[in-house]
């Protein structure tokens, strides 16, 4: 056990950081929506799933099936990010407009919105399995199979830590995630719209009285949260080179766990929560002796943290984030 942990510590750390950054990006969407609306948006896992397909659409339409290099690679990668962000952000805004806004306008209970979110989640999964994958991606009868991304980037070793290779794709995933999170942090703390988001999170009624257009704020929140999930989707696709209609389920639960672990409603908490989940599941699985124990360990840690620190690691919410 311990020997395994020592020999596999570095590779596990590299893998944990890379998947943890993707968890963190998805967790941001949960945490932002919760901060503003006090709603756990269970359909966010499907927004992530849509992001993977949005990114997949780019190499699919361009007909790229071989590894690219140089500017072609950078261009495709940026287009994939854009594709993922576009589809996810569009999906999230549409979801808010169709499913949540009418409920909010009628003053329905939060439970109604939660059930609506679960319904929307199943709806989106089935739409992808039955229509989008067979028709748009031309894989008839294979809607529920894995949809692969051909290798568009050679997996070269970039540098090594303690004799363990760090690949280009892993570096891109972590770097892109960090850049997006810094950008988001700036948006929320430094801009006018960010101030609106924080004001709404602190006290919706007072924010309205002070002239904040709450509908715009909610829409922007979904837009930004969706875009982050889209980036996560594109990065996921790059790292694992496959996706399916059901990909969001386990991933969504883990990202949600990351959001709760870091302190739901707290942006930096989501980042920390994601990385912690990524690392803990990899370290824990080595110590338990088998990868099959990953989820047991992850959720065991969640229970422990919440028992002793119910508000999560950072504890403070979006409301108290200082400008």
């Amino acid at each position, binding site marked *: 056990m311990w020997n395994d942990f020592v020999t*596999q510590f570095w590779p596990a750390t590299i893998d944990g950081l890379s998947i943890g950054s993707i968890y963190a990006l998805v967790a941001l969407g949960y945490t932002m929506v919760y901060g503003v609306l006090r709603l756990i948006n269970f359909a966010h896992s499907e927004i992530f799933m849509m992001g993977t397909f949005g990114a997949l659409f780019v190499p699919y339409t361009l007909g790229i099936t071989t590894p690219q290099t140089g500017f072609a690679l950078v261009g495709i990668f940026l287009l994939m990010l854009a594709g993922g962000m576009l589809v996810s952000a569009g999906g999230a805004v549409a979801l808010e407009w169709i499913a949540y806004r009418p409920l909010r306008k009628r003053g329905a209970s939060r439970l109604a919105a939660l059930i609506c979110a679960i319904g929307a989640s199943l709806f989106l999964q089935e739409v992808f399995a039955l229509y989008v994958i067979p028709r748009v991606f031309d894989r008839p009868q294979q809607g*529920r199979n894995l949809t692969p991304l051909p*290798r568009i980037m050679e997996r070269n070793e970039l540098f090594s830590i303690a004799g363990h290779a760090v690949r280009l794709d892993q570096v891109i995933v972590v770097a892109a995630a960090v850049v997006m999170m810094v950008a988001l942090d700036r948006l929320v703390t430094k801009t006018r719209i960010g101030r609106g988001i924080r004001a709404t999170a602190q006290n919706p009624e007072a924010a309205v009285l002070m002239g904040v257009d709450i509908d715009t704020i909610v829409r922007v929140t979904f837009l930004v949260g969706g875009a982050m999930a889209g980036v996560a989707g594109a990065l996921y696709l790059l790292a694992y080179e496959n996706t399916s209609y059901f990909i969001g389920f*386990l991933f969504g639960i883990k990202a949600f766990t990351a959001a709760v672990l870091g302190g739901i409603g707290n942006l930096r908490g989501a980042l920390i929560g994601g990385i912690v989940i990524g690392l803990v599941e990899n370290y824990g699985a080595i110590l338990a002796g088998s*990868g099959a124990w*990953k989820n047991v360990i992850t959720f065991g840690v969640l229970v422990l943290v919440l028992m002793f620190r119910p508000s999560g690691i950072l504890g403070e919410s979006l409301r108290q984030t200082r400008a």
Partner: protein
Amino acid sequence: MLNRRLLRAVAPVAALALALSACADDNKDKVKKGASAVASGASAVASGASQAGSAVGGNSVKIGFMGDLTGENSGIVIPARNGAKMAIDQYNATNPAVKIEMVEYDSKADPTTAVALAQQAIKTDKIVGLVGPAFSGESAQVGPVLEEAKIPSITMSATNAKLAANGWKYWHRMLAGDSVQGPGIGEWIAGPAAKKNVFVIDDKSEYGKPLADFVRKVLTDKGIKFESDSIDPAESDYSTAVNKAVAFKPDAIFFGGYYAAAGKLLKQLRDKGVKDATFVSGDGSLDKGLVEGAGAANADGAIVGCPCLIGGSDAPDPKVAKFAVDYKAAFNADPAIYAAEGYDSSSMFIAAIKAGNTTAEAINTFLVTADVPGVSKQMKFGPNGEVSATDTYIYQVKGGKIALLGNSKDAKLG
């Protein structure tokens, strides 16, 4: 006023009914009965449609087919469905006294769904025999239900060894189980392939775990060094198992599980630098999904063992060759895994019905003593329902295609 209110109440119901019947029509050819509990209304409409469609006149009996027809691992079930359907279509085309109607049940490999569908098959559709269920997990749950209703079944692909140990009188299997396949592959790894350092991974499923255990047992008996791990197939990231494999430096890796996970695992292994170890898996991975999931370059050279025989139109056995030609003509594809076993399972029921047995009980009695030549093998069941033939075949991925390498007793690595 009353009218408008009535209209308001009725309109959505009518729209829903319309939508459901449209759905049912749409799917009639592919899958007659939706597996999920979409609404009992939908399946009522669907079964109505199928009964209306089967105005065969005179005598006809129903044979069911159950398996994962639309799910993640449907690639290894659809060829069997095609084979089973082809046998019945050929038989019906001869204008026999008793026609057979095949009813498809899409279990999506979910045991709970499979049990509900089995009950529907017994009570509503009154089938006299079932081809399937395709996988071991669902077979373990459906077996007792069929046993109680005294409906004979022949599975063409569920290979879990324990299935034969339940003492079920109405259960049969058209291919050798894991107690043959597992040791067959294990002995191939130790013998003809001559591997010294093996990493054995399973997916903890009803199929993958026991299969891997059979391989581990052979390796232990032969004194070959090995290390074990398990994965959760629903995960995207198998890095724990992969990192362990990197540290162990194996010259062969055995994976007990289905192709969806096998493809992802193989890709992650190769990407992490486990390049030279031969990747070996069982019949659950014998699908082009393995190549697609891992990428053609990564999958090249991967080995898949199977107690099934997949022959093309160039096969030396004329029966196998003719089957391949007919299959290609009917489905515009070469026969894939279990196509021949599916065809044979149907043929066995057809033989029983030809001999004048049209009730479930009479068919089962026929199955006990029958000894009929089939495409994949001589079809004869032992008292526990197992087929008598016990060969395991080794296949290898070459240039994106899965090609037969030979019998596991002597197949050499190319």
